């Protein structure tokens, strides 16, 4: 019986799609957990660094590093952290929307902007809309290492140290929970002075070799660590968003299959009824 062959083919194709989206959902779930673990593992380094920076800025009130000085803002730098791949709902477009609003505000204040992109989606976005992009890194994979980010961060730090940019920001997604990610813009430079009131008396480190050199080194590493954390967090966001997107895609496929199945059954039933009617009609005619 050739009833509803097209419908059967269609059902099979939707089922195949559902298999794929379901697999992607499960992969995203496990990758998200791993990314969250890496987020946790990266926290102590930045926390320890923050302590040291706080100690220094307190111990060294007469010495001000360029990274700590607030300058009038004529040009800002933004590190844009996006994903390498799509299929993650509105994650990147939410981030870009927030960023475009901020860009509009800056343009209104005659502030110029330099960008540096991490992740291919950001690079593609600026390719379409224009903007001065100083550097970019892409194809970070699911387990990025600090070394992959050195170039991108150093470009911006060098620009800041040379006075080419007066403030440095990072735009990325905040991992609130697995259902919610929030686009966020954070200021990296100049560093906000950290005051630690628990240190009552005045003391200073012995610096080896020179205070300035150690500070340069330390602050560059600190910014790198902050950027690395943001990148890891963005990956957790990406996987969470993909997990949700793929789950709803699987659900939709399930609904579609149900509907198609119903249509198919009806058509089959109608064909049987008609055949019976024909037989009965034929028998009556004899």
């Amino acid at each position, binding site marked *: 019986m050739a009833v509803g062959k097209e419908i059967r083919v269609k059902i099979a194709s939707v089922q195949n799609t559902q298999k794929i989206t379901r697999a992607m959902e499960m992969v995203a779930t496990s990758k998200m957990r791993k990314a969250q673990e890496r987020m946790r*593992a990266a926290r102590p*380094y930045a926390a320890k660094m923050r302590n040291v920076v706080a100690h220094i800025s307190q111990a060294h009130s007469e010495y001000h590093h360029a990274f700590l000085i607030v300058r009038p803002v004529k040009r800002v730098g933004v590190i844009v952290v996006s994903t390498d791949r799509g299929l993650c709902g509105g994650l990147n477009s939410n981030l870009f929307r927030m960023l475009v609003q901020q860009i509009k505000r800056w343009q209104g204040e005659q502030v110029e902007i330099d960008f540096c992109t991490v992740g291919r989606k950001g690079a593609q976005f600026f390719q379409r809309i224009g903007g001065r992009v100083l550097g970019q*890194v892409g194809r970070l994979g699911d387990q990025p290492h600090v070394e992959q980010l050195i170039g991108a961060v150093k470009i911006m730090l060098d620009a800041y140290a040379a006075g080419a940019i007066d403030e440095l920001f990072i735009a990325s997604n905040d991992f609130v929970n697995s259902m919610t990610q929030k686009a966020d813009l954070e200021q990296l430079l100049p560093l906000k002075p950290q005051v630690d009131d628990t240190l009552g008396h005045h003391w200073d480190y012995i610096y080896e070799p020179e205070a300035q050199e150690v500070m340069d080194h330390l602050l560059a590493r600190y910014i790198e660590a902050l950027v690395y954390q943001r990148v890891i967090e963005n990956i957790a966001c990406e996987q969470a968003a993909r997990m949700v997107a793929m789950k709803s895609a699987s659900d939709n496929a399930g609904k579609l299959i149900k509907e198609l199945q119903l249509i198919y059954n009806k058509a089959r039933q109608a064909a049987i009824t008609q055949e019976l009617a024909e037989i009965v009609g034929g028998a009556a005619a004899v």
Partner: protein
Amino acid sequence: MATIHVDIVSAEREIFAGEAAMVFAPALLGEVGIAPGHAALLTRMSPGEVRVQLPNGEQQAFYVSGGILEVQPKVVTVLSDTAVRAHDLDEAAVIKAKQEAEEHLRARSDKVDIAKAQAELAELAAQLQTIQRLRRRGG
């Protein structure tokens, strides 16, 4: 016996945390041994071995590829790099990131075209909305 708290961390993970009787680290100007009550010190480290002598006399060694050593009378913090870092290697990374940007973005204006950006975003938003509407209708 007096002990000193030791934390060894890298940007990617925590490597060691605990009490120690003595710590040896490869400072830039030579290896330093740190006993409890050491004066506050901040120094860079060269690639080498950080040895932690536990209170029970046992010794643990960790390889670091450079980083920063912070010493306070009761706490030692080793901020380890995750890979060997050198000035020219860092410069090479900068050049690579720049080249990548130039390759992709040749012949394009320096100014962000807000109108175009908003059109792009509107398109993306419309796509998402369509999906959502389909979903509602389906359910």
